[in-house]
């Protein structure tokens, strides 16, 4: 039920991001979704790609500091209240969200929200118990 996300440390300077995207393009890696968290000096680029193994290997070979993290993908109808329904459940169970980001599926019917939790196992448990749709990585990597 887990999704593997790649996070990359980047200095906050021109060309840093482009360097990453060029490498991914040259290796034919497709980014499903991404999020960029920044401070004044550095940023963390988080990616869901179609080939986690290949992408992290190629990036490491090119000198990047790469981490692989387990995140959780939840599918909800793309309607007002979609995100809220998930957060309500988590809040009631006292589960903390470290960060999240989202994208809309090609079909246009649903949105997918990527969550990072402190305690991934418990979070997945709670989400499933509340009949929320948790997507496994395989469903996301190749669409």
């Amino acid at each position, binding site marked *: 039920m887990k999704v593997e996300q790649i*996070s990359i*440390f*980047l*200095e906050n300077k021109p060309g*840093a991001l482009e360097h990453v995207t060029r490498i991914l393009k040259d290796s034919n890696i497709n980014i499903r979704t991404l999020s960029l*968290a920044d*401070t004044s*000096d*550095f940023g*963390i680029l*988080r990616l869901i790609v179609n080939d986690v193994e290949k992408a992290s290997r190629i990036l490491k070979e090119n*000198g*990047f*500091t*790469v*981490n692989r*993290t387990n995140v959780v993908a939840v599918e909800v109808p793309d309607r007002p209240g979609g995100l809220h329904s998930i957060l309500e459940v988590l809040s009631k169970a006292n589960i903390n969200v*470290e*960060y999240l980001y989202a994208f809309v599926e090609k079909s246009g019917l649903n949105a997918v929200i990527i969550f*990072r939790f402190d305690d991934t196992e418990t979070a997945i448990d709670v989400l499933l118990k509340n009949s929320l749709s948790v997507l496994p990585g395989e469903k996301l990597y190749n669409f």
Partner: protein
Amino acid sequence: MIFDEEFETLPREALEALQLKRLQQTVQRVYHTVGFYRRSFNDADVTPDDIRTLGDLRRLPFTTKQDLRDNYPFGLFAVPMSSVVRLHASSGTTGRATVVGYTKRDIEIWSDLMARCFVAAGLTKNDIIHNAYGYGLFTGGLGAHYGAEKLGASVIPISGGNTKRQIMILQDFGPSAICCTPSYALNIAEQGQAMGIDMRSLKLRVGIFGAEPWSEEMRVQIEAALNIQALNIYGLSEVMGPGVAMECLEGREGMHIFEDFFIAEIIDPDTGAPMPHGAKGELVFTTLSKEAFPLIRYRTRDITSLIPAPCRCGRTLIRMDRVTGRSDDMLIIRGVNVFPSQIEAVLVGIEGLEPHYQIIVDRVNNLDTLEVQVEVNEKIFGGGDVIRVLQNTEKRIVKDIKDYLGVSAKVKLVEPKTLQRFEGKASRVIDKRHI
């Protein structure tokens, strides 16, 4: 004006005879009371009785900063702790700090020498002295303080920091003299101007600046900014503290070394051979009266030259030129001595960090800045990919540098392999300041 007419204007012959007598006494004493000196003299095949002329000083072995570190904390003390009334130390992690001690008489003499400095700057007991050198383990604050009290002047023990309050005191108390680092003086002037205060119309007449190297250009800047005479003072805690040498108001060209208490030599830093007067080399000091922490031929790592020409002030004491550089990698940042190896030690002490770093020193608005760039690696990043973890790492480095070195640094994490790799000894410092 001269505090101690007799000794500051001794004819050279009498001065040298006095130096020889005191040197012989010092050499005898250290040989018999400090194991380190007995061993190093024996290794150099020299005994105290071999010192019959001042030229024989060259037969004695040098003492280095490493020797002081190796004997941390009290290994080089020549008296029992019961006779030591004060301890001072330079910054550094345990085992790297240099510790010095003083007997009551050492403090008396230090106070006298600092009083000489204040009088050379034209000050009397009627003056108010604003002492912004740091009070604490650093010798600057208390050194200047005791000298000012010895002179009988009214000393304001304000120490460093809190510039707004310093400016308020300068206006309200109206001191005639200020003691601080030259860059801090410019910083005070700048902040005061920014507050709308005419910094040239304070009661200040003279400034006694040291603890870091500064240029003639900077002197002109300070004198213009504060409408004062800006004089240079020199010292180092190993030898005593501030007050080893002082510029005189009349001459303003080189600092008179108090040769009745210190013998100065200039050596070639690579070979150790003596250099003639006027030639630039490494400054070496031998103390002539210190009881608790005597020092034989201590290599200061400061590069300068000696000026033997007579000075119009009447003092017969030789002068040393401005210090222009170091023969080691030590940095002086806001008056604090920092060795790159100390920063490396801090980084190595933090789990997960590899010591791939770069130190960038600059001066912004007349205040020294220190930035340490450290490469990220999988281990640090792997501790969790949230921003918080990385920021905590940065904060931890900042805190450790502050705690161990006493200096505030900005820390920046950078991508791996982006910092230069060097063959052999890495020069990890980029110093953008133009002193």
